[in-house]
């Protein structure tokens, strides 16, 4: 009953091939020894990875992206966790509206958000600044940080906190010693998910990044618009490797299927 037929497995193989083909070809081309785009048919070479290190445009963009991801993920988690607790633990007027507003950044197309931020930062004098990048990223990754914090706090048994309170713990002590440890896997996963989302974001950021403060995906995008060479393949291969690490991390601490599809099931 629960077996896939031969036709199903053939479809599955083609599908996986379709999904992996572009990713594999990027990684393959990154190892070419030639000066132009080609598959590494005569031996692997790391020359294009060395070329990244020698390219200050890409290295400074990498550092900017890492900083941006770290800062904005931390700020958005710090804002989202209390809000998640409020939505999960309290019934209050306006609760639905709060939950909707917290998800709102997902409803607006990133290109439109980019336009809105570009105008907003130009008027407020934050245009092209790193602070502006951080602020905009905090907004767009908030729903991701919220989602995991929310599903972690929804599963929480309020009796545990009541028990702590009845034993005389202050509300801060309850949060610090009881609530936080219980929702920590959700909070940490939310942070990683928010970090990846910020680190990968290109559509919104391309509108507001300036040549001085630009992120790695934006730098890559602008470079590709001019020309495609093995250097961009090598940068992309690096990005793919980094993402794979983060993904395996998420799968270990939280479970990728639960993260993307939700809890429950078998």
């Amino acid at each position: 009953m629960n077996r896939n037929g031969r036709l199903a497995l053939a479809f599955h193989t083609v599908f996986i091939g379709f999904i992996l083909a572009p990713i594999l070809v990027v990684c393959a081309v990154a190892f070419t020894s030639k000066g132009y785009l080609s598959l590494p048919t005569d031996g692997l070479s790391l020359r294009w990875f060395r070329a990244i290190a020698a390219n200050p445009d890409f290295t400074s963009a990498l550092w900017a992206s890492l900083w941006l991801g770290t800062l904005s993920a931390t700020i958005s988690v710090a804002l989202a966790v209390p809000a998640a607790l409020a939505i999960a633990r309290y019934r209050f007027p306006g609760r639905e509206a709060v939950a909707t507003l917290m998800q709102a950044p997902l409803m607006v197309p990133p290109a439109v958000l980019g336009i809105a931020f570009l105008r907003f930062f130009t008027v407020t004098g934050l245009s092209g600044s790193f602070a502006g990048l951080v602020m905009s990223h905090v907004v767009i990754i908030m729903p991701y940080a919220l989602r995991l914090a929310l599903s972690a706090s929804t599963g929480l048994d309020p009796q545990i906190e009541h028990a702590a309170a009845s034993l005389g713990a202050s509300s801060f002590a309850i949060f610090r010693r009881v609530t936080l440890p219980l929702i920590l896997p959700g909070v940490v996963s939310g942070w990683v998910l928010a970090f990846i989302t910020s680190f990968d974001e290109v559509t919104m950021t391309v509108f507001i990044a300036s040549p001085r403060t630009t992120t790695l995906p934006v730098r890559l995008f602008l470079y590709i618009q001019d020309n495609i060479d093995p250097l961009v393949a090598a940068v992309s291969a690096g990005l793919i490797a980094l993402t794979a690490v983060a993904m395996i991390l998420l799968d270990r601490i939280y479970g990728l299927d639960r993260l993307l599809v939700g809890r429950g099931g078998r």
Partner: protein
Amino acid sequence: MTTGESTRRPAESLRLTPYLLSGPALAVLAALLVVPLIATFLLSLHSFDLYKGIENVYNFRNYADIFSDPYFYRIYGRTFRIALIVTALAVLLGTPEAYILNRMRDPWRRICLLLVLGPLFISIVSRTLGWALLFGSTGLVNQGLMAAGLIESPLQFMYSETGVVIALTHVLVPFVVISVWASLRRLDPQVEHAAVSLGAGQSTVLFRIVLPQVMPGILSGAIIVFALAASAFATPAIIGGRRLQVAATLAYDEFLNTLNWPLGAAIAVLLVIANVVIVAGCNRLIERRYAQVFQ
């Protein structure tokens, strides 16, 4: 009841707590999301002059310009045509794949799920670059198709709608897998067993039992894919290039090349409105049609 004073205080602070907890996040979103979006709408009402720049007037001239110019019709038409084809392809590929994944056993199922959903975390630029390499310089796709005898001369994928559709389908199909997978997991396997024990064949079970129950999942996946495809930027920009504009790349050009910000803002506002109308319309349709499934 006798200790009215001491019970009222915690109750009152309890009433304020949720607002204090969610207040900072809401303030940030109000200041950095709601205000900029309203400002963008107001910007779209301004007019633009090559010499004077943005003028602080309020009228709907930008919208009138867009609606009276066939150039914009062509671009919005292309945007939504691409989005529709991508949605159809993503549903046709993603639904059976989710079903197959759901029937696999665990070490394999977990690995395959990682392979199918993992690419969602990889930057869109890197994934699209892969297609640019497959279509263009290495020409692997054309070599493969010619070797298989399917075509005689190389096809033009770069800078073509076909290329954009293939790359966007690849980028977005995991969303259909996720949403169908979620509704497959809510399925009661007993119903399938019951159908089989009553003599139903494989295809009858699939089309009469499974498919109707996962239909809401398919449709909600389709809505997500459509909304994302219609507002896609990086993939059409890289594969389609300058010659094949879509709504998002057009807005980008108005903002960063032509510098006609009010017109760019109007293009963006129209994109949001069209998206919201289509997505909300489909949502209501689904809710009415499949009300019993959601209960």
